[in-house]
């Protein structure tokens, strides 16, 4: 009898321990109540910048900044549910998201990229649509060397995909992709790896890679060259804001972090990542600085 009770007790104890272990592991990264830690989640385009800003912010304020990637939709959801102090989104807020407050810290563009050896120098919007929907499947049809087109698309849920599709008025179900990729870096490697590939990535990431010698070519959009300078000047047609998002007005210390991220103290970090500092702060910065890097 004692044996049975003993074994039952130990069994339930062990199960309880296991349950505790598992639930402890499953708890999502909750936003900290204490003022000494900030949790940021969301867009993988904003995350590298936020992490760099966070490092500098940590050094000056002593507040720890945790940056986790997971896409714009997750950033918005986490900010709304209080799982993160600040969400990161690489798109503007849409209708139905008025409960959130957004703060633009930088701007970025999306450009179409092909392999450097591809003779095609430009694609009209209509040609891009026809290529991505599979109506044009050979480079010969758009003035290139004859050969099959490899369409590189992004995985569902990424804001780069959503913006690209919205800009060209395509539904994702119409896209005839040959390769589906995750982040910008994988897209650049995929296009660099084959002469017939065409994809779209963040201008910042593509410019950075092209400068390092990766064999890709950034195509102009509506005759505007895909450069950071053109995004900065507001001339590039497919640009997007990189936002920090909070539920309602930000509280301390999130407020301090957002102010810091929009201040001129971080412009060098923004430019290091080939992004464009937010327009409002840029205007203020130009007044005091006579020679910005743009010529």
């Amino acid at each position, binding site marked *: 009898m004692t044996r049975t009770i003993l074994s039952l007790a130990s069994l339930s104890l*062990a199960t309880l321990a296991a349950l505790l272990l598992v639930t402890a592991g499953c708890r999502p990264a909750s936003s900290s109540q204490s003022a000494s830690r900030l949790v940021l989640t969301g867009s993988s385009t904003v995350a590298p910048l936020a992490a760099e800003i966070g490092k500098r912010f940590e050094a000056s304020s002593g507040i720890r900044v945790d940056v986790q990637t997971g896409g714009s939709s997750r950033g918005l959801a986490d900010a709304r549910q209080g799982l993160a102090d600040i969400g990161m989104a690489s798109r503007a807020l849409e209708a139905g998201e008025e409960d959130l407050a957004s703060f633009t810290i930088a701007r970025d563009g999306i450009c179409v990229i092909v392999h450097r050896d591809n003779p095609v120098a430009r694609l009209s919007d209509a040609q891009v649509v026809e290529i991505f929907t599979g109506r044009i499947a050979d480079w010969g049809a758009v003035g290139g060397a004859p050969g099959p087109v*490899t369409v590189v698309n992004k995985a569902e849920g990424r804001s780069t995909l959503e913006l690209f599709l919205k800009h060209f008025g395509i539904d994702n179900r119409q896209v005839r992709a040959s*390769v*589906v990729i995750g982040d910008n870096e994988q897209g650049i490697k995929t296009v660099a790896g084959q002469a017939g590939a065409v994809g779209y990535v963040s201008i910042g990431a593509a410019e950075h890679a092209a400068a390092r010698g990766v064999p890709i070519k950034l195509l102009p959009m509506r005759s505007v060259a895909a450069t950071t300078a053109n995004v900065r000047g507001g001339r590039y047609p497919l640009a997007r804001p990189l936002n920090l998002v909070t539920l309602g007005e930000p509280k301390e210390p999130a407020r301090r972090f957002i102010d810091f991220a929009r201040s001129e103290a971080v412009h060098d970090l923004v430019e290091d990542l080939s992004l464009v500092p937010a327009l409002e702060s840029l205007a203020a910065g130009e007044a005091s600085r006579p020679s910005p890097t743009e010529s």
Partner: protein
Amino acid sequence: MSTARRPSGRSRQWTSDRLLVWTLRGCGVLTGAVVALIAVFLVVESFGALSGVGLLRFFSDPSWHPSAGAAEGTFNLVPMLLGTLLTAAGAVLVATPLGLFSALFCRVYAPTAVARPYRRLIELLAGIPSVVYGFWGLVVLVPLIARFRPPGASLLAGVLILALMILPTIALAADAALSGVPRRYLRGAAALGLGRWATLSGVALPAARSGIATGVILAAGRALGETMAVLMVCGNVVEMPASVFDPVRTLTANIALEMAYAVGDHRSALFVSGLFLLVLVSGLVLAAESIERRKVVG
């Protein structure tokens, strides 16, 4: 739970033996509970999609576009189920003969001076992280295939990378199994005047059969579960492949690609892919067990 009963006088004492038994029981329960809890967790998380979308639609929907939610999205998992099975099966088909022959070479034909470094080399191959294989595949193998048949990122690339990854598992298991064949079997074969190949095919390999089969099954499990490498080389397009040059997406790659970005029904649908994967692996384990049992009986 059924240990042999001891005389009642001794069993009440807290001997080191009993302490060990209870510790081991505790460990056993903990391990079992973790597996059970993961299964429960998967079912609970996928419940939203299973009830909102319905199990049938994961097989009958026209495509996989889940981010629009349960009502407007489409949730067909069959191409990915097939992608997982094809990549894993292809890899096992390619890697098994290679692994087996490399083990035979290492154990029987190679002189000791070659065999030892060769074995270390295979062990090194087993220790390379999968993301490194994936990276190599993305920058070397995929462009190579693309030169013959674009887009390069394809079922074939996935099969080759996975085969490379599971090759050491099969080779090392076969090597260990061959080394476990009793010496007297081999001496007996030699005494009968059998040649080297006849000894191997007629005596050594049948004797090592179960060890080799275990290695192959372990390798198949690794191939089914591999994520990073296949994500990087397979193209990840959710379509039925018409040839080995077409891209595929596996269930694991599906979860890794979309999980961080998914909310609501989309997220829940990804847990359903996890559930499918669990069922697939369970099926493999059961199949392996039944094959083993049949061999022992027959």
